[in-house]
């Protein structure tokens, strides 16, 4: 990722156990202080994030997921124009990227990394044991991918 401005956005609800995986992973990435990598944490994505995304070459969305194969799934995000958004409580990564491209004419490339979680129903800030292992695996991957010379390729990683 040498010379590339990268934005890492971790989002979710840290009060709903594993739903906080995205934020927790983003905070771990922030602690690495990788040059050229900016980190944001949020409860949800919304329209104003398009402005920030547009100021970066690459955006990596970090979220928790109940259906991704463990430990995590990395995929490329395609900007989606013409999506009928259900609500502006939150936008999907595709919607944010779509606004960044349509409104700000930004060629930002988007990726989404979904960490497999298991407990989204309880109220509390504790990430479950298995989800915590998945978080560590995702972090190990990002340590390499976000460094100069690293790259983000859509992939599944075996548990």
């Amino acid at each position, binding site marked *: 990722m040498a010379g590339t401005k990268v934005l890492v956005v971790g989002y979710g609800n840290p009060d709903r156990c594993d739903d906080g995986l995205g934020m927790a992973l983003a905070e771990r990435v922030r602690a690495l202080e990788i040059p050229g990598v900016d980190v944001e944490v949020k409860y949800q994505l919304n329209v*104003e994030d398009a402005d920030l995304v547009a100021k970066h070459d690459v955006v990596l969305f970090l979220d928790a997921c109940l259906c991704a194969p463990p430990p995590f799934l990395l995929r490329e995000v395609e900007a989606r*124009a013409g999506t*009928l958004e259900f609500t*502006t*409580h939150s936008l999907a990564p595709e919607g944010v990227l779509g606004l960044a491209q349509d409104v700000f004419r930004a060629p930002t490339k988007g990726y989404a990394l979904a960490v497999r979680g298991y407990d989204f129903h309880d109220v509390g800030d504790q990430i479950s044991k298995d989800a915590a292992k998945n978080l560590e695996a995702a972090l190990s991957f990002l340590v390499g991918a976000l460094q100069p010379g690293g790259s983000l390729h859509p992939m599944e990683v075996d548990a």
Partner: protein
Amino acid sequence: MSSSSMTERTRRIVIEPVTRVEGHGKVTIHLDEAGKVDEARLHVVEFRGFERFIQGRPFWEMPVAVQRLCGICPVSHHLCAAKAVDRIVGGEALTPTAEKMRRLMHYGQFFQSHALHFFHLASPDLLFGFEADPLQRNVLAVAAKHPELARQGIMMRKWGQEIIRATAGKKIHGTGAIPGGINKNLTIPERDALTAEWPQMLLWAQSGLALARDYTLGHLRELADFGSFESNFLSIVRPDGALDIYDGVLRAIDADGKIIFDQVDNQAYLDYIAEEVRPWTYMKFPFIRSLGPAKGWYRVGPLARINTCDFIDTPLAEEARKEFKTLGGGRPVHVSMAYHWCRMIEILHCVEKIGQLLRDPDLQGTDLVAPGGERRSEGVGILEAPRGTLFHHYRVGEDDLVTMCNLIVSTTNNNEPMNRAVTGVAKKVMSGQATITEGMMNQVEVVIRAYDPCLSCATHAMGQMPLVLELLDRAGNLVHRFVKDDGPCAPSEEA
């Protein structure tokens, strides 16, 4: 008449969920034997239970805890709970710095919420038409065809969020307001950063207002017959009658603009407002006690506030209010779709107020918390949230734990009006139609969106559902099913 008995003799249409409102809802439209709309209902199908959850928690947690009600207007709940808790600690006489910081937070919240609603929820309906291709009726289509407008909406929302961050510490679920005060002032760098963008925000607020005004005036004949009806209105106003969204006395007016009650102290709201429960929804139906549930229901929110106040104390918004009021010819304006125009008058008022506050040195003061006064066992906080009047009421024990909580959120206040608006539009566009089109369904949603309901505030919302419309014959058999996904919109029909 119960739903089940009605189903045996009528057809039923379901719109679920209602799209581009905050949260989830369902609309059922009951058709009679002749295919005419008999009744329509906006249902809230999930249960909130927040009042019960927080019983047994320390009262000082309330300003932070209640923000979990909503990710869109947490500031309203934060400040409203703080006002109630101020009362409990006897600290309601805030220091100038604390009150102005809270007001700045609130104006910022209004600004971003109204901008988000107008530019990104409502504008597709106004720009492309109520029956336009559903692939056009969304913010990304606005971005593609009107990128400057979409950009304005994004940047206005972002600026409002930055005000919240500067005053509350975070954009979402901040902690700025504490019992009897505030926990920070506005630093010079924060002030200067916000001030630098203020002139542009003022211009965009004015152009947004012009768009809403021109749209309303240009379509007045259709809009007057589109989910519009006469009603009472309720809001807080400053004691001298000025629009005030942070603090004031309760005022209610009738359809002719005559005062029902005025100068009502917040702590006495239960003497004037009651709530009715109906079996088919978790949302209650508030009403003015003296008039009873049948005649005492009322509207809140931007249209109500502009109708109830006597004046606005900022010059540009006051000029806009005066022009708006000419529509009513001396009476309140009752056009439901005029909510949009009023919303943009308020956005202009907020940016004017923000400008005044940014120039006020009190915001750099260091006297942040009022000295505690008489400890009370009960406190009521009322303010105007973007969607309307918001009530927080707590009772606490000697151990400081909450024993009772009652919340009347803005959207709940508008429950009866939204149901009437839905019925009106359904009767207008669906009665006698053999086939219900997606465009017809959207028209029902258009009038709901005018009220900008937040259904996750009003109850609790989670997950996603497809939009389903069903036609049932008089025996309850399915004869037509219409499904609209909430992803890429692909309407499908099944016979």
